[in-house]
């Protein structure tokens, strides 16, 4: 292999293309003094270009696939219908719309669960709008008394800890949704999207808890486009995301990046593109991309069964693998 004189001058942490000229041209991808790959220019491959186009989907195709998935899964269980929380945000609206298109609105129950601290009449209005447009059954329940009961009952409750207090709301809504699932023989439909799921931007065993999650493999910006495609109003499709755990909370403020950029970072990480390359392509600080990568890795625990120590032949969560 030819020695690269140019190697010594390069930042050892970044990946780059360096050209070696010998008898014939080659493209060589290096990092530091390590050669990652060599290909003839003719054979040619390039590191994936991260432009908004890569996130484009055939939305009709996606819609049909998700509808088939929902119908198929329901048919395989003995459930009569589906229940989900309707926040008035784009994720739950899209999930609800898909369920309705797949099963018929009558089989879909949307629970509207406002609470005093984060109450916004516009959100409730939007939830009702979605319900009406897609013929959903709805039930409204103000969960404030439940929350206050928690605040009063928990020993040494700390109202200033926003995250602890906020998670109670998410988990309470989970309890509500599962009550109706139990009582009315419904499956719980989740509203998590791929961006949130990868970032761990959800409450463990809270808002992500569900029996199936139709938009879990779609990035936030893709969900927004699908929402428009399904006929959801523009104001819902472009509403800023929020878990609404405390007033004025927005996802993009907390995460430090807008979803247009974030989704491209996550897409790149999904496809094993080195973080330095992602940063270079999107013209962002590499430390920011590393922070996103780290966040994705650290939140794996939220996406799995509780950890068990292996003591016997087949262990749940490890090697006891039954089809669902």
């Amino acid at each position, binding site marked *: *292999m030819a020695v690269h004189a140019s190697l010594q001058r390069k930042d050892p942490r970044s990946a780059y293309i360096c050209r070696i000229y010998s008898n014939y041209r080659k493209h060589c991808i290096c990092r530091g003094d*390590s050669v*990652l790959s060599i*290909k003839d220019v003719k054979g040619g491959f390039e590191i994936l270009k991260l432009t908004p186009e890569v996130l484009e989907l055939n939305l009709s195709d996606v819609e049909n696939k998700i509808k088939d998935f929902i119908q198929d899964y329901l048919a395989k269980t003995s459930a009569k219908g589906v229940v989900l929380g309707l926040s008035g945000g784009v994720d739950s609206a899209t999930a609800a719309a898909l369920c309705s298109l797949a099963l018929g609105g009558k089989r879909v129950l949307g629970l509207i669960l406002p609470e005093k601290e984060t109450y916004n009449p516009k959100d409730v209005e939007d939830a009702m709008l979605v319900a009406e447009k897609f013929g959903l059954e709805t039930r409204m329940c103000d969960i404030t008394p439940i929350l206050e009961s928690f605040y009063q009952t928990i020993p040494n409750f700390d109202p200033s800890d926003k995250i602890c207090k906020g998670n109670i709301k998410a988990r309470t809504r989970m309890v509500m949704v599962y009550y109706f699932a139990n009582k009315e023989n419904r499956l719980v439909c989740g509203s998590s999207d791929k961006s949130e799921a990868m970032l761990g931007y959800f409450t463990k065993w809270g808002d992500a808890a569900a029996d199936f999650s139709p938009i879990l493999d779609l990035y936030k910006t893709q969900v927004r486009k699908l929402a428009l495609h399904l006929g959801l109003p523009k104001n819902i499709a472009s509403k800023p995301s929020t878990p609404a755990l405390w007033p004025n909370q927005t996802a993009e403020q907390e995460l430090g990046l807008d979803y247009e950029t974030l989704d491209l970072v996550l897409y790149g990480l999904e496809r*094993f593109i080195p973080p330095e390359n992602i940063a270079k392509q999107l013209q962002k600080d590499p430390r920011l991309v590393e922070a996103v990568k780290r966040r994705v890795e650290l939140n794996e625990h939220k996406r799995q069964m509780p*950890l068990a*120590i*292996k003591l016997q032949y087949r*262990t749940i969560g490890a*090697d006891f693998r039954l089809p669902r």
Partner: protein
Amino acid sequence: MLKLALAQIDCELCDKQKNLDKLERATKEAQKNGADLLVLPELSLTGYLIKDRVYELAEPIPGPAISRVARIAKESGLHIVFGMPEAHNQDRGILFNTAVLVKPDGGIEKYQKVYLPTHSVFDEKRYFRPGNRITTFKTNIGTIGVCICYDLYFPEVCRILKLKGADLIVAISASPITRKKYFEALTLTRALENTVPLVFVNRVGFEEGLQFWGGSRILTPMGETEAVAKDREELLFGEVDFHETMAAEVAIPTIRDARLELLEELKNSFENF
């Protein structure tokens, strides 16, 4: 006499620099104690259950990790064997579960694990390409044969290493505690049936719910177990006397008495199974 240092270590999952720091510390300690060869466990560069992160952590050989270990070997004068995920030089998506022998003169030898466990908690065939070569490596401390973990379940691996002139077999492992009994028996058997000294170095610590059992040890060609480690991090020292091999070959002449026709029979039996 070959002085061995067995670095039975826990590894920092996905942190190559920290694991190389461990390797460096172990080398210094081994050097102080006059060791000739330092052995570390399977995939000790990165940890074992790294799953999809193997794609970003695997390195070609030579590469940055090897460069650092080569420097450490050169400065200390020790031969070092350790495990790492290896990336193919040209094709980044092709990976191997590799044991590297780094010599103090800068020489690098590698063995790519042939038998990749894909059962129970093991998913190696998902990530790694099976190796195709079982060879020994000539060094100025003897001819060394290397094998990794599951390879020990297959008698042919160690037998081939012995037949290719191995003075010592180095078996590195990341073996979970559910396999302890098997490895205690297998390491003993492989040493005995081939009348060859065998050094076994295993991981300790937890990865997710999996506990590694340590138990690193030296097996003599006569089937004696020496220098056994427990189940915590430990730097164990031991010696191998190559003269013992000849005595063993005389007393247990399995290599002399092996019948090639039966190997033919073995092959046919497998094919017709």
